[in-house]
């Protein structure tokens, strides 16, 4: 075989500046691709990826990669076939061809090892929650007092004394939202109290399904305290799905009926401010709660008591005293302890220069 001067020049270029290629089975996939990656010291204007099934066979171009990229996933392969790769770079100094790499074969992975840390984290959290749920069924777990809840009785009492109604707004999302679910179990307690005192309770909803659920909840509560006659279905009304339509409807109730106590518990968006401001202007005692971090500031500023974030869930557990809810709350607490421990460990690992701990938490590959 005769080597021309030009070829020698090319080989020289490869040796001196060089472009190296590497091909490997794409990790954590179903064996449908091979990843080809390359490094080059020479600036190039384009990269052509070549492939062959034999080392000394004909290499055919399969793709032209964009500048700035240094890898390519070859998905046009047959699983189990061995492939050889080579790349050709166009540079200012002409074309350079890399050495041949291979053979590489794609295979199926059954478990995505790149997601092992996610798997472990989920298992730990699940275990903590389920463990305490099962324990709560056997023994009573302690939940601390939540200030906003202590105020609830007082607020309902005040409405009774003044002979004015109570307004309960369960948020603007449907019953498949966790916050609405939590709100409904708080509503049950509010309904029990108002029914026992014989105070009128208005529950306007923004979803039809939320309305039927609220009606059920309130009806049951009334029966439970022996006041089924107190329940009026028409006080629990679906207004409209539309955000602003709903708010002006609720505002209308506030201005007309002048409730002495307003509850806003559930999911809220921009309407939180309008509700809290209008309620404040009618002089009502306001108790709010939401796990929407963006809306908490208005409630904190304009309401008398606010359940902050997770407190909304805690409140529903506290009031219902159901083992399942209390247990999962306790499980969440264990999760928080683990987080605190992990944060401290991570900080200490940083101080002693142990990078490995940090890497355990990389969730993107």
């Amino acid at each position, binding site marked *: 075989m005769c080597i021309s001067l030009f070829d020698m020049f090319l080989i020289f270029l490869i040796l001196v500046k060089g472009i190296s290629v590497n091909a490997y089975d794409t990790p954590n996939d179903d064996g449908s691709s091979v990843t080809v990656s390359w490094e080059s010291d020479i600036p190039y204007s384009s990269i052509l990826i070549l492939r062959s099934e034999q080392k000394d066979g004909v290499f055919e171009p399969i793709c032209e990669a964009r500048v700035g990229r240094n890898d390519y996933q070859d998905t046009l392969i047959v699983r189990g076939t061995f492939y050889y790769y080579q790349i050709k770079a166009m540079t200012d100094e002409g074309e350079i061809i890399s050495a041949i790499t291979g053979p590489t074969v794609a295979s199926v992975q059954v478990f995505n090892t790149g997601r092992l840390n996610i798997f472990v984290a989920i298992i730990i959290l699940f275990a903590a929650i389920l463990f305490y749920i099962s324990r709560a069924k056997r023994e009573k777990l302690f939940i601390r007092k939540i200030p906003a809840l202590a105020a609830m009785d007082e607020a309902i009492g005040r409405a009774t004394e003044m002979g004015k109604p109570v307004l309960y707004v369960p948020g603007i999302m449907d019953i498949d939202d966790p916050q609405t679910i939590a709100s409904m179990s708080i509503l049950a307690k509010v309904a029990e109290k108002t029914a026992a005192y014989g105070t009128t309770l208005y529950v306007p909803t923004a979803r039809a399904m939320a309305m039927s659920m609220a009606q059920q909840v309130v009806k049951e509560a009334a029966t439970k305290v022996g006041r089924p006659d107190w329940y009026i279905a028409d006080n629990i009304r679906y207004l*409209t799905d539309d955000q602003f339509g709903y708010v002006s409807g609720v505002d209308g109730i506030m201005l007309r009926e002048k409730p002495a106590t307003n509850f806003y518990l559930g999911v809220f968006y921009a309407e939180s401010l309008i509700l809290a401001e209008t309620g404040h202007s009618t002089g009502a005692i306001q108790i709010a709660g939401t796990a929407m971090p963006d809306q908490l500031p208005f409630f904190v500023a304009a309401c008398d008591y606010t359940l902050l974030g997770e407190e909304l869930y805690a409140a529903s557990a506290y009031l219902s005293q159901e083992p399942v809810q209390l247990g999962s709350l306790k499980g969440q607490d264990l999760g928080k302890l683990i987080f605190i421990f992990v944060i401290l460990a991570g900080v200490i690992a940083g101080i002693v220069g142990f990078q490995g701990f940090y890497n355990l*938490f990389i969730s993107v590959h």
Partner: protein
Amino acid sequence: MLTTIGIWIAAFLTLSIYSFLYKDNPFYKAAEHIFVGVSAGYWTVYLWFNYALPNLFLPLFRDGNLWYIIPVVVGFMMFAPLIPKVSWLVRIPLTFTMGISMSLFILQIVQGDLLPQLQATFLPLTGIPPFQVFSNILIILGVIFTLIYFYFSKPHKGALGVAAKIGIWFMMVSFGAHFGYTVMARISLLIGRVFFLLHDWLRII
């Protein structure tokens, strides 16, 4: 011509809504109802063309993929509550969507929120300027104290009580900052409308 009429309509509607600030009145009510009607219509059209058609009806009727009968039927079960006898069927679409969304929730919260956010709290305390060390310590403690505030199974007394109290302070600063940003956002929206009235409609700026 049409655009000019459009701008006049838009200006009229804008002013009708602002008239509410003086007091509730028929102009506001009309504008509000128009708004609800227009946006409901808008969403129906868009959901039809972008959700229901490409994901259900095109695969079923155009491509003849009979498997898609399942989700179409499940979707229509949303209307089951209208017929009291079979109203329980509404639980099927509800549980189907919840099964999918809840599991995705769990996975993505762990992958996208918990792990990276924990990692981001492993802040360096050595080899950086003193003020940076102070800020980093503040972040680490702030996260821990806020978490302690949300610790429900122990009474907030003694050291725990102090920690929870500091946690509240952190949250209050954060809420205050957030309130400031909200004021900013709302004022910006007003600026946008005033700009429209002065620039596009009256053309005085």
